[in-house]
């Protein structure tokens, strides 16, 4: 019994270390690969705790290997948007201008009840009030209300365009996202002109968001990171 007790304490320390190694990313909402790793770890750790014939190392090695692979894989996917999409998928628009995209819902195997429930949890009870609802890669639903339904702020008082779309990410870590430009009905030439006027190259930009009214926001890449 004492052996089991001591093994449990040791594995508890290993698990705490493993979760800390995975970082804060792991403690928030889980991406698919992180969910898999978490489930696997919780399964693996029970074996050496319960079965004293199994050496502790046979439990510790797979846990550390999984955690290390997860950290290394997330570092690699951070460098490539394509790999990130393969590993985590991409957000999907399920409501556009108050209309549900039924085809998308079927593909995602989401029921209307799921969507309504997620919207209600955000204080939205009428689909017609939603300009865009997006299912994020974590499975969470984000809703963007139509301008007339959004809470009043000083900034919104001065806004003239009533049908503004949410700002889109146009450059993500140096990669131009052409779909966003298309979504905003902006051309590649416009982006080139903006970059030229700002005296920047796309690869020097960490984040650039833009609106349909051609306003934009740029965050430069910090050097040495």
């Amino acid at each position, binding site marked *: 019994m004492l052996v089991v007790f001591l093994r449990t304490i040791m594995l508890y320390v290993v698990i705490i270390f493993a979760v800390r*190694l995975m970082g804060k990313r792991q403690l928030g909402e889980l991406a698919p690969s992180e969910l898999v790793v978490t489930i696997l770890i919780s399964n693996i750790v029970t074996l050496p705790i319960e079965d004293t014939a199994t*050496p502790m190392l046979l439990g510790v*090695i797979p846990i*550390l*290997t999984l955690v290390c*692979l997860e950290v290394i894989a997330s570092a690699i996917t951070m460098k490539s948007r394509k790999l990130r999409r393969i590993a985590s998928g991409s957000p999907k628009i399920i409501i556009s201008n108050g209309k549900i995209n039924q085809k998308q819902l079927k593909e995602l195997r989401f029921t209307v009840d799921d969507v309504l429930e997620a919207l209600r949890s955000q204080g939205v009870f009428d689909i017609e009030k939603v300009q865009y609802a997006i299912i994020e890669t974590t499975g969470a639903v984000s809703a963007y209300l139509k301008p007339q339904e959004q809470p009043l702020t000083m900034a919104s008082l001065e806004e003239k365009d009533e049908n503004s779309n949410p700002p889109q990410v146009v450059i993500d870590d140096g990669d131009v996202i052409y779909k966003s430009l298309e979504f905003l009905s902006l051309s590649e030439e416009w982006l080139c002109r903006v970059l030229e006027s700002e005296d920047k190259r796309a690869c020097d930009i960490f984040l650039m968001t833009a609106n349909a009214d051609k306003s934009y926001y740029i965050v430069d890449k910090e050097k040495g990171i």
Partner: protein
Amino acid sequence: MKRVWICGLIIASILITSSAWLVVLCNKNERLSQLIDDAVESVRSGDSDSATRAIDDLCKYWESFYATASVFERSTPLDNVSDSVAKLKSLYENGSEEFYSECETIRCAADRIFKSNLPFVPDSTSQ
């Protein structure tokens, strides 16, 4: 980035330790096999002093083998070998023919423990 380096180091140390363990296990197996051969030869020669000494050496070596192997190996197959090793002395003292078969059992079991650590199926013709 610090985390990635730590993870890289952990993966590298796991690979190095497991490869080193294979080498250690292989050497220990060879030594055990040699001690079994010595014990069998001594018993066959009829020299009771050297036979007793060879069996004692084998038993002592198995104890150290067990202590090292239990860090990485499941205890069930190791315990099976320990049972066989424990029988050797009394089998020899009773002049039982089973002594030889127990020696072969120990050799096979130790070999199986080593082969279960190989990341590939060993060639059966090389056995």
